[in-house]
């Protein structure tokens, strides 16, 4: 049995169980609505409440923040690998920002940047930055000495060594870092939206909670899960394309 079929069966089993529980134990709908009620509600929101626009808003913020955080992280990691002194200087600050709970940073960002997409993108960038930086630092720093020797024997220029040897070797740990960042990026975007926004899936969550609309809340959670999952699979797909020697080894 191959992986996609297994995944579908597993999901179908979960939905069946959910249905069975709602029916069998007569759970009130305001606590746990049936899967059908959730889908009904999502269809209603899609038609009447611009669900699609909320979804694309959140997706755009996740993607924007992710790209910015990844680029800054990779650049910083590469620079730190070259200049350990710079790393020692900045590491405490980066660790401080990184260890602060993201939920605690979000209100501050909203105070500074308002209710628009700004604080969401910044928060996503912050959570993406660290794993990307760590991956790049590892990748660029721990290249086997023999490859440096090879570069010297073959007479590579500094630029050639960077693009032909260092960068390809750094790709696997960078992608591994980005894979970790995907789930955190989704969480960060939603957290920031729940703290203060006038659109987005996080906003829908808060609105649903305030009006005791549990079908909508569960529906949005499902969309978020699917988003995170899809994002993760996208990075894995990129990994398989970028690093064929790793995935087949």
């Amino acid at each position, binding site marked *: 049995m191959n992986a996609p079929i297994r995944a579908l069966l597993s999901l179908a089993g979960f939905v069946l169980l959910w249905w069975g529980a709602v029916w069998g134990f007569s759970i009130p709908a305001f606590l746990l609505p049936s899967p059908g009620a959730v889908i009904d509600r999502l269809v209603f929101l899609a038609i009447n409440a611009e669900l699609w626009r909320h979804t694309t808003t959140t997706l755009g913020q996740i993607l924007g923040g992710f790209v910015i955080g990844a680029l800054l992280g990779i650049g910083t990691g590469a620079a730190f690998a070259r200049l350990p002194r710079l790393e020692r200087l900045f590491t405490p600050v980066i660790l401080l920002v990184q260890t602060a709970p993201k939920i605690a940073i979000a209100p501050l960002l909203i105070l500074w940047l308002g209710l628009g997409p700004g604080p969401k993108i910044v928060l996503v960038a912050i959570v993406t930055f660290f794993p990307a930086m760590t991956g790049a630092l590892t990748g660029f720093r721990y290249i086997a000495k023999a490859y440096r020797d090879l570069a*010297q*024997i*073959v007479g590579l220029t500094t630029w*050639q060594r960077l693009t032909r040897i260092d960068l*390809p070797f750094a790709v696997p740990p960078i992608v591994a870092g980005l894979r970790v960042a995907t789930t955190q990026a989704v969480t960060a975007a939603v957290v920031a939206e729940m703290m203060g926004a006038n659109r987005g899936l996080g906003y829908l969550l808060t609105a649903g909670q305030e009006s005791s609309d549990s079908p909508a809340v569960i529906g949005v959670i499902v969309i978020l899960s699917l988003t995170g999952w899809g994002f993760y699979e996208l990075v894995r797909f990129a990994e398989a394309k970028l690093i064929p*020697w790793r995935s087949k080894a």
Partner: protein
Amino acid sequence: MITIEAVSKRFAGPKGEPVDALTPVDLTIPAGQFLSIVGPSGCGKSTLLRIIAGLETPSDGKLTIAATGVARPIGFVFQEPVLLPWLSTLANIRFPLDTGGVPRAEADATAHRLIKMVGLQGFEDALPHQLSGGMRQRAAIARALSYDPPILLMDEPFGALDLLTRDRMNDELLQIWRATKKTIVFVTHSVEEAAYLSDRVVVMSARPGRVRAIHDVDLPHPRGEATKLDPRFHQFMATFRRELK
């Protein structure tokens, strides 16, 4: 020709005290010679090879490599193949030519010729992880030969291979040497390999690293199964082994 005059190497030890990795060595290696350096680990044989390659700078002494009009006079084969895992066999062999600005068609022709020479036909497009250990080391040798350096330095290139593969690789290396007339400096810890392959053998000993003896191995060429039955071959091996103790 490689001339080594009073070349020595001193490292800083764990407590900062100077450690002699290599006490002064004098050695002249004529063009076209197959010279082996045999010794136990820690005798400085790899250090000496790396100094010749320019990968380490000697603490003292003088190294001269007479190779006029060649941009890259040295090919180096490492203990591990050190292939780039994302490049095909062909692209790995062509790598020094690509980065050296050799036109693609010319580089391709050279790489295909070398693939034939090291017996990797049919594996041009394979990635390194799809090759066996022996095949990877063959690709590494072909890469070192790609830009046709007059000198080939080899640092225990077959140490990680099983004995059968190693024997076959030794014979193939001798063929390559006969075909290309390169100067080869071959580092090994196997007295058999040294005696079988070389014109001349440098025996080194450890703590401090130094040259113990130098022997001319005047066994007839081409070498093969008959060489291994020659009593003088076994005498050479016995001599080296005694000197290594």
